[in-house]
């Protein structure tokens, strides 16, 4: 599948929806999942409040170990699905609906609310 220039549209969602870390969104996200926890503890059932990150903690980065696990031939290697990729390429190559970026943003918010249960 070829990479396609996103062109106009929504920018990458503001970090905090899921943050940059592959190891997880913040406590607010967990509460949206119905996991009750006093901030910033992510899950009362999972234990005490975690230690607060150092004030000078580096910007959250992708977990290298998880990234490696999801790439290559590891335990979560993704089987190829050429037909699904071709279907997507054909769909993206079709005429794009004319929707204003601001409207896309509102649709995005509404979709997250409806599907995500937030």
């Amino acid at each position, binding site marked *: *599948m*070829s*990479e*396609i220039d*996103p062109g*106009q*549209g*929504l920018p*990458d969602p503001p970090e905090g*929806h*899921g943050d940059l*870390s*592959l*190891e*997880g*969104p913040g406590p607010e*996200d*967990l509460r*949206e*999942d*119905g996991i009750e926890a006093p901030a910033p503890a*992510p899950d009362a059932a*999972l*234990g*005490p409040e*975690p*230690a607060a990150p*150092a004030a000078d*903690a580096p910007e*959250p*980065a*992708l*977990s*290298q*170990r*998880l*990234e490696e*696990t*999801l790439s290559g031939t*590891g*335990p*979560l290697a*993704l089987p190829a699905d050429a037909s*699904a990729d071709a279907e*997507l390429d054909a*769909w*993206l190559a079709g005429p*794009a*609906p004319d*929707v204003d970026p601001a409207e*896309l943003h509102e*649709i*995005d918010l*509404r*979709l*997250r609310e*409806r*599907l*995500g*249960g937030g």
Partner: protein
Amino acid sequence: MLHNAAARRDTRPVAYGRELRLAREAAGGRHDAVHELDGLCDRVLGRAARRLARVPADADDLLQEAKAHLLRPAVLDAYEGRGPLAGFVRVAGMRAMMIAERSSDRRNWRDRVAFGLDGMPLGSPDDGLAAAEDRADPALVAALDRLPARARQVVVAIAVLDLSYRETAVALGMPIGTVSSTYNRALASLRRGLAEHPGAPEEVAAR
């Protein structure tokens, strides 16, 4: 997409020690830890499984199969305790559901008891979907089902699991630009389904 991994090596402290212990204990086969993780998977992934599958029974199969992939020591060992365990489950779980969806020999979990490590029975297959209260309306679900499979997966990853574009790209094995293009196109395609929601306070698509 992944070539800068070494340069971005995660130097955050292990701030989620309790969750790291839980993952390690589950990887080691401790039953109560496996059960706790099983419940977390239900809460985090149940709704996404419902949206990826077209019928509830298939969603149940998908969720159980994904958990069979996810709750393995080789996978749990990838959790380092630098972020919430639920976040790890979202990303790795999305990948696990993709693997399950593409598996030609997908097992039918409706007709069997799910077993975890050491043959220990996990929760009933219905537990996950019971936890995933489904409030999506039929018009929106129908619009979602009309999307190409890969586009539906992108929507689920972003709108249901709340993954960033980058996390979605890694979880789905797609270039991040394609994730962005696909999500924007999907939003445009779904606006009618959103507008048809009976409880919609505003008709976005009518503008």
